[in-house]
């Protein structure tokens, strides 16, 4: 147990009352500092080949390394475990050359075999990240050519390949083998343990409460802030509710926090010593219509709704911290074009479309489903309800657990009339978003529209296998226009990514490719 100035103050309740929010400091462990990060979501499964979401991946990125890494805004892919790679002209073969000095936390060297093993494991477990590559890459086609070279041979060209590689983390095959029970490929063990090479290693793991990471002193890649400023470690603390999270930041019990409401952030910006990070995001918000069944199968009704909705409310709800979507693709994604004539609130037009629909007088009730507990989605539902009153359409706002929503959305018969969905593209390649409108995505959460347009489907399928990037992008421009014209969803907005932190936390590096809330902990340090 470490001696901590903060705990001493915490326990001396009297002293604490006398010194409101002063004399508090970041945690020290010896003369190094521990950074405390608070979020609202646990880390149920740490295994990098089984699960990812923002909090999980934040920890995974800290304890594991990938061949490549996403950094910066706009996001770039930089060499990491692989110092360079080559792509064959036919787009089928990728050869990665590893750095020579990478090693796992237990001292084992990180070699080509470890990379091969990890990709194979990811594909075989067929969970989490597997969907990204499994249709194009067979485990037997990954070859460790020599200890520092790995070669991947794809079944057919797949343009987004490189954009997914950074999310395939490398695990230590020896540790996995040592902890395999009943042939589970180490799955049970890796749920709460790590076998990585990343800048941090696990010290304490309770995915529902707290995760304590220690910095690796001799991290093979070194530390950008210099050895003197290197942290002792990072604590990820789960604080489910916003108010305690905010109070904790105010009282310097935490140094970095995420998932604050726009209103909270506005208030916190005024606090001395608190800095707000506010960056253009990459996560689209849309309301998916059920295009196959029910009233919304009627394109005129969809258009009517799209023109009746008060888009400004999306901005107001975020206190200005959002941009309206001008295409199905988020701004900043390769191939993104600004589609002209995106529907905006225009009641005249809305009424014209409504009149052409099968329910010219409205007088229907539509269900709007959002994930239970998502406050913004609920408020947007209220704005939608208010907007559609002008068309004499009632809205039934329903919050449902994720599983129920997904289960309902899996079939056109049960999919709600309207479902609010946030989508964060996992890679920068346009296919990541475009494929959501393909027939193959029907029934998955981003495919709840059950959007049908065979021409568009064909274009999407063609584009993902193309090597010529210019032609590819031209196709995507057309795809975006066609999708907007078909209005399978109400294209909403892209909210800013926001965090609040103490101002002594230095070198935060934003990258929109990370999930909402997710932070790259590697460059962070504490000054003072």
């Amino acid at each position, binding site marked *: 147990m470490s001696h901590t100035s903060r705990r001493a103050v915490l326990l001396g309740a009297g002293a604490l009352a006398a010194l409101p929010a002063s004399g508090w400091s970041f945690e020290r462990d010896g003369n190094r500092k521990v950074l405390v990060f608070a979020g609202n979501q646990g880390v149920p499964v740490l295994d990098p080949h089984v699960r990812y979401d923002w909090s999980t991946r934040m920890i995974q990125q800290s304890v594991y390394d990938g061949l490549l890494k996403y950094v910066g805004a706009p996001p770039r892919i930089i060499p990491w475990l692989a110092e360079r790679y080559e792509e064959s002209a036919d787009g089928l073969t990728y050869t990665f050359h590893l750095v020579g000095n990478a090693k796992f936390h237990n001292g084992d060297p990180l070699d080509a075999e470890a990379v091969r093993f990890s990709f194979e494991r990811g594909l075989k477990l067929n*969970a989490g990240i597997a969907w990204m590559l499994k249709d194009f890459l067979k485990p037997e086609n990954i070859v460790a050519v020599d200890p520092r070279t790995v070669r991947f041979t794809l079944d057919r060209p797949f343009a987004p390949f490189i954009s997914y590689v950074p999310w395939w983390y490398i695990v230590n095959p020896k540790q996995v083998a040592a902890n395999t029970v009943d042939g589970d490929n180490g799955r049970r063990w890796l749920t709460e343990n790590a076998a990585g090479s990343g800048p941090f290693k696990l010290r304490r793991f309770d995915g529902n409460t707290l995760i304590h990471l220690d910095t690796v002193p001799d991290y093979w890649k070194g530390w950008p802030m210099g050895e003197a400023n290197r942290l002792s470690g990072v604590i990820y603390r789960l604080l489910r509710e916003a108010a305690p999270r905010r109070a904790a930041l105010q009282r310097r019990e935490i140094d970095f926090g995420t998932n604050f409401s726009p209103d909270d952030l506005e208030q916190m910006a005024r606090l001395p010593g608190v800095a707000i990070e506010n960056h253009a995001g990459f996560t689209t918000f849309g309301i998916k219509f059920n295009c196959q069944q029910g009233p919304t199968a009627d394109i005129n009704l969809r258009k009517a709704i799209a023109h009746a909705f008060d888009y400004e409310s999306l901005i107001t709800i975020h206190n200005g911290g959002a941009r309206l979507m001008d295409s199905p693709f988020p701004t900043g994604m390769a191939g993104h074009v600004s589609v002209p004539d995106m529907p905006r609130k225009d009641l005249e037009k809305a009424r014209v479309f409504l009149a052409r629909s099968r329910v010219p007088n409205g007088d229907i009730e539509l269900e709007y489903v959002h994930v239970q507990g998502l406050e913004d989605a609920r408020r947007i539902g209220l704005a939608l309800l208010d907007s559609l009153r002008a068309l004499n359409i009632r809205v039934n706002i329903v919050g449902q657990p994720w599983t129920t929503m997904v289960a309902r959305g899996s079939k056109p018969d049960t999919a709600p009339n309207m479902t609010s969905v946030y989508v964060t593209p996992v890679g920068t390649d346009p296919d990541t978003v475009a494929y959501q409108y393909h027939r193959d995505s029907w029934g998955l959460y981003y495919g709840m529209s059950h959007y049908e347009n065979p021409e568009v489907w064909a274009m999407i399928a063609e584009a993902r296998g193309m090597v010529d990037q210019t032609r590819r992008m031209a196709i995507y421009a057309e795809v975006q226009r066609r999708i907007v014209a078909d209005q399978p969803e109400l294209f909403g907005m892209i909210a800013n990514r926001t965090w609040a932190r103490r101002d002594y936390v230095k070198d935060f590096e934003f990258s929109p490719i990370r999930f909402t809330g997710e932070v790259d902990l590697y460059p962070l340090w504490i000054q003072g």
Partner: protein
Amino acid sequence: MITYLLRRAGLAALMLFGLICLTFIIANVAPSDPAALAAGPDAGRSQIEQARREYGLDRPLHEQFLRYVTDLTRGDFGRSVANGRPVGQDLARYFPATLELCLLAMALGVLAGVPLGMLSAVFKDRWIDHATRILAVSGIALPPFWFGLLLQLGFATALGWLPTSGRLSVFTEPAAPITGLLLVDSLLRGNGALFTEALSYIILPAIVLSLPCLASILRVNRSEMVEALRADYITAARANGVLRRRLIAVHALKNAMLPTLAIIGLRWGWMMSSTVLVETVFDWPGIGLYAVSSAISGDFKPVMGVTLIVGLNFMIANLVVDLLYGTLDPRLRDA
């Protein structure tokens, strides 16, 4: 007595089986797809199907039920689809926190409820009686989640005297549990600082949780004390000059304590159920929070496990109360 106990235990087992059926039915009327949760957010259809097979969710319901029951007999509560961990393991991890919270809350409830009930009965119809009566009803009427928020607002946010939520400071790494109850463990290890820290975290949720139970105990104890104080044997003891404090604290109280004990047992069962709210407000890492977060994400095995544990706990509490009744009431002891 032995046959009676056996009969009771048999009934409890039967009821436990009923409870298992009930939770199983509820978990399966859900239109949700646990396999989707198991497979993760961006999972494709083949991955969802694979998860379904892995968790045996593709089997017919009666087969799933049979498997669940046979697993239960081995102490296996099934696996959570959210993290794939055995629910039993998680229950073992979170139950001590809930137990500690409930024990402290119950201690507060009894330690405050019984004396207040006595006071109220002794000063019946005086202002102190009216005041405790309003307090008692308030204890039942105050929404625990709201009251918890108010306490947080006052003692944690505004005054800064106590931490807002959680069970320990993030910097404290508790040693391996002995009992799992931090207050007890820290005392056993002679770690005063840890004890104070744990206490500072547990005190607000314990107060909120104790209120309804305090109120019930107070009410029952008051009315039983009033009854007892009116009883003939108290008049006789008084007429014979038994000391007043002994009269109230022993002669009357002992009689009032039997029904109070019954309510304590009943409340213990309810308390385990209402920790759900308190744990949610205070982010207390117990089985209540575990149940709510699992239920909201559609992960039912943990909810079933918690329901069973809480139901079992309720039955055990009832059994213990029965036993205590038997030992405390000499008339039953001989019967």
